């Protein structure tokens, strides 16, 4: 090594890391949303499922297949030198719930991205976050050629609790996605405040 490392002796800053999950049906625009705000091209991590998948994956007929690959796309936003937010797109297939558990652990909150043509695709995600009381916001991705529904109609169709914010958004648009993420954090704060209230009273 000819080049000395810069700033030898000074330990690197160890930022606080936070994560927000992006869930929703297949093809609803999760990776597009992540890409709209991420400072890096969405990266992909993969997990090979072997033993872990055995009770869940039906491999009859393909007994020779010992591993399955699940991909999770993610992006990064450095808010400050010492504060970094990661966005994780959840794997689409329902049978990877156990990976969701891992992703959801310690998450600040979640965005459930919905397409009004296929609202039923996000039922599972809504249910998941409700059950675990993870604060989430429903983002209705407004595709160009679809009828626009008022947020209230979406709320009713998904049978959401009154407190859950529903935001119309465009997953391709940076400003729009920023707004959705801000809503998630605000909702998480309100959620935490309500939880504290419940404990103290």
């Amino acid at each position, binding site marked *: 090594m000819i080049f000395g490392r810069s700033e030898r002796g000074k330990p690197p800053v*160890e930022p606080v890391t936070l*994560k927000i999950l992006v869930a929703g049906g297949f093809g609803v625009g999760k990776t597009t949303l992540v890409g709209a705000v991420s400072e890096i091209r969405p990266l992909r*991590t993969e997990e090979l499922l072997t033993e872990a998948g055995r009770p869940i994956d039906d491999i009859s007929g393909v007994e020779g297949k010992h591993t399955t690959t699940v991909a999770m796309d993610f992006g990064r*936003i450095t*808010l400050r030198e010492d504060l970094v937010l990661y966005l994780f797109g959840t794997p689409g297939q329902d049978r990877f719930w156990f990976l969701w558990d891992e992703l959801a652990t*310690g998450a*600040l909150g979640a965005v459930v991205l919905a397409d009004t043509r296929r609202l039923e695709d996000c039922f599972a995600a809504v249910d998941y976050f409700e059950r675990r009381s993870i604060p989430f916001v429903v983002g209705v991705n407004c595709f160009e050629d679809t009828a626009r529904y008022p947020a209230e109609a979406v709320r009713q169709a998904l049978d959401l609790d009154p407190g859950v914010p529903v935001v119309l958004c465009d997953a391709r648009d940076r400003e729009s996605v*920023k707004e959705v993420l801000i809503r998630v954090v605000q909702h998480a704060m309100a959620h*935490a405040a309500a939880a504290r209230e419940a404990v103290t009273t």
Partner: protein
Amino acid sequence: MSGDGQGRRHWFDDEAGPVVRPYAMTRGRTTSAAQHRLDLIALVVTEQHAEDPEADHTLSPEHVDIVELCRDVPQSVAELAAGLDLPVGVVRVLIGDLVDDEMVHVTRPVPPAELPDESILRDVISGLRAL
């Protein structure tokens, strides 16, 4: 490594898949002893004294890669897995080895079921606004 691989007809190099099966790098281990389940956003930081990992012959090239990658800028487990093109499970085992060897340490993200400070959340909101 550039991402200009589209439109190729043949599989070369990385596209042909791994030469070494991923879990061969961990000698078949899927967990490491010291391993507290590392979160995807846990940051790996190279220890100051980990000067020359290549001199340590017990380390695999992938171990050395991790030590070098995390030297100047801490990397999350997810970023390491993506950057090294290895499954998360493999990277976790390798990091566990390096923690045992005291070559790196790992920061703990906010513990589960606990939200970070309200002041941090406010900082996140203003940070997002300022993007």
